[in-house]
């Protein structure tokens, strides 16, 4: 009876000092990583002040005058402000949604492959697009879409009897093109992460399901997807934190920096680059970065709060 009494008390959290004393080898191993993180990620945060100053190199960063929020104005005053924000967020939402679906599908397919040799071959193949530099990708796309020498115009459209399309000056096709290029390039990386979760599912669950009369589709719907829930939420929350950022290579180089396409390919990052290249204005560029990361931070907090309300276990923090 006494033992039962004792087990009713929840274990107290160990005090920090005591913890260090007892587990000091672990803290020692942790130290280099933490020091690196502080030096590389936290100390540079002091540089955020640049976003609020007009930098005069003669005075140095610390003594340059404060200008309040005026470095942020150019992002909002322009008639393009709505366009670039819409593009950045819109594309990111589509990327997250479709990216997750494609990655999970591929992960499940990888799981179905019989034979370890085949599995490994496909895992490698699937990762290759991710490793190719975006500049190379932009020329691969050019090989397809070039007006006079591209594959699509010459081999596909010509055979169908359709007029050649000047891809790089017609903006209506590009949302689709960019989504396809993005999916092609990044599905490999995320699918490997999902795949790692899938292979961790206990095999006995499948056997129990078969006994209950489950077919393949039921197995996917009722075993694999629920097991992936945690991973999906974690990866999505992480992507959502970057919702105001965009892959510069994808939006600047793949469309070959073509002017007529700017309405659908201009994102916050490319807008800042194009606008400030000649002006060389560190303050304004920092303001843009600050704006993107601040909003991303708030969005992650909000999303996490939402997830907490729905399903406490899976929230990030």
């Amino acid at each position, binding site marked *: 009876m006494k033992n039962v009494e004792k087990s009713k008390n929840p274990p107290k959290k160990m005090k920090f000092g005591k913890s260090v004393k007892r587990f000091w*080898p672990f803290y*020692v*191993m942790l*130290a*280099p990583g933490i020091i690196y993180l502080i030096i590389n990620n936290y100390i540079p945060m002091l540089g955020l002040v640049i976003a609020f100053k007009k*930098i*005069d*190199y*003669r*005075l*140095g960063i610390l003594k340059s005058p404060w200008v309040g929020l005026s470095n942020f*104005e*150019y992002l909002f*005053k*322009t*008639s*393009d402000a709505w366009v670039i924000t819409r593009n950045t967020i819109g594309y990111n939402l589509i990327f997250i949604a479709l990216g997750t679906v494609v990655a999970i599908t591929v992960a499940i397919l990888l799981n179905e492959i019989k034979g370890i040799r085949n599995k490994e071959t496909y895992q490698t193949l699937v990762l290759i697009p991710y490793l190719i530099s975006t500049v190379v990708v932009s020329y691969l796309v*050019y090989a397809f879409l*070039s*007006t*006079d020498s591209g594959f699509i115009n010459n081999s596909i459209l010509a055979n169908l009897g359709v007029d050649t399309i*000047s891809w*790089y*000056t017609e903006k209506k096709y590009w949302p689709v093109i960019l989504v396809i290029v993005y999916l092609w390039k990044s599905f490999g990386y995320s699918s490997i992460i999902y795949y790692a979760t899938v292979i961790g599912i206990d095999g006995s669950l499948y056997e129990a399901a078969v006994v209950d009369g489950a077919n393949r589709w039921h197995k996917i719907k009722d075993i694999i997807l629920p097991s992936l829930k945690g991973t999906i939420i974690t990866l999505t929350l992480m992507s959502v934190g970057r919702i105001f950022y965009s892959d510069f290579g994808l939006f600047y180089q793949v469309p*070959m*920096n*073509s*002017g*007529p396409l*700017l*309405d659908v390919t*201009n994102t916050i990052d490319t*807008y800042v680059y*194009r*606008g*400030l290249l*000649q*002006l*060389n*204005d560190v303050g*304004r560029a920092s303001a843009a970065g600050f704006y993107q990361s601040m909003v991303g931070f708030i969005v992650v907090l909000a999303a996490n709060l939402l997830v907490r309300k729905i399903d406490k276990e899976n929230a990030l923090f």
Partner: protein
Amino acid sequence: MNRMKKFLSVLLVGALFSMALTGCSSGTSEQTTKDSGSAATQMDPDKTEQDGNDKGSGEIVTLKVAMVSTSDQSGADEVEAAANEILKEYGVAIDITFINFGSWQQQTNLLLTGGSDSVDVLPLLTTPLTTYVNNGQVLELNELLEQYGQDIKEQFTQEQLNGGKVAGKLYGITTSRDLAASYGIYMRKDILEETGIDPATISKVEDLEEVFVKVKELHPEMYGLFGSQTGSVEAWGWDRINDGNQLGVVMDSGQADEIVNLYEQPEYETFVRLMRDWHQKGYIMADALSNTETSENLMKSGKLFAAFNNLKPGFAEQQERATGYEIEVIEFIPAYATTQNIQGLTWGIAAASTHPEEAMILLNQMYSNPELSNILVNGIEGESYVYIDDTKELIDFPEGVDAANTPYTNLGWAWPNQFITPVWSPNPTDYWDTMREFNETATPSKALGFAPDTSTITNEVTACTNVVTKYNYALMTGSVDVDETLPKFQEELRNAGIDKIIEEKTSQYEQWKLEQ
């Protein structure tokens, strides 16, 4: 046994930890030498930075010089040593760091922020001079020039010197090169002869159409006219007042009286309509907008017939060397000089320099001392060049050396004064004189020397820059329909604030005119 294990594990952890730390420290010392050494050369190990406070005592002040390069300057050390032999009697020495064009903009930004890596003297290019001035990165030179730079003043006309002024104060001294430009077209002479059309009959841009028709007949696989991501031509007969985006220009080779919106001018519309017509007829390369190749490379591989370009003396010979074909040049717009020609490349002194007077003494020598300039521009005699005539006016590569493997590439236009150095064959011996004459007979734009300060209108400039990027190059290469696109372009510019920009630049211009 347990104690042994425990002891060993403690030892291992300690070793791991200290390895991580040592990795850290040696990494940083590597970093500093790498940063100050940069991409191409090693620092001369004998040079030590001395605190030359008293010039009279014979102490030599070492000044850091940054220089742009297009290749690996393996002969840089010898050049530096030879230069320092000459500079000894002036109390200065130089430590040159060559930085590749590709990383020039970022590296120089770092080098100009001060600190022990800071540079003293450098050429100012790619980033506009006005930007450097607004950021406080370069020193005002008026007084220094008067005190220590008298010989520099003799190398240029007052107008050319004025080109380096921003808001009335001198910040950069231009270099000796083509300080004006005329505009025209260059084409493959052999194909032009095939068409049977006499170049003398071509006097207007529109006359080129019959040439293109014939070329397309004879060589359907070639591109008639060049186009690229940056359009087909720039500054076609107007002064863009130091602005690459041409937000407010002075028309008529800079002779008009006021600053206007280029994109609403009839000349612009006529030109882009012509380009659109030619594009649809197939004379301009179809995917011009996506093209990142240079016209020289395309012509060299036999795919291109002609390209618009800005011209200067010796241009045809230069293109012949670059493409390997004989070139015919036709000029449409005679030479005129704008602020951009002069201010586009100047030499200046960093604001963070601790030895500004010595820096000006050094510049004075670089501009006026023929021996020093020859070493800096051409390298060491016998290694990167040899004299081919007795009067020592012409030079060429030594045996076995060519443009690809020379230890020291000539960047004469980028050094302060190539006019006092020998001429490279096959250019004629009076090449520099021809160039000087070209510079001085070119019609100076009325706005020559005026460089607007855009710090109060940066928001509008950023917005307008984006609009120009969206439409200008597409229109200039004829890639989009003019009736649809031009009105949209003009409207979006107005929404982005082009009128405010022109108003601001006009009021500064009027102010500047009064002060002349």
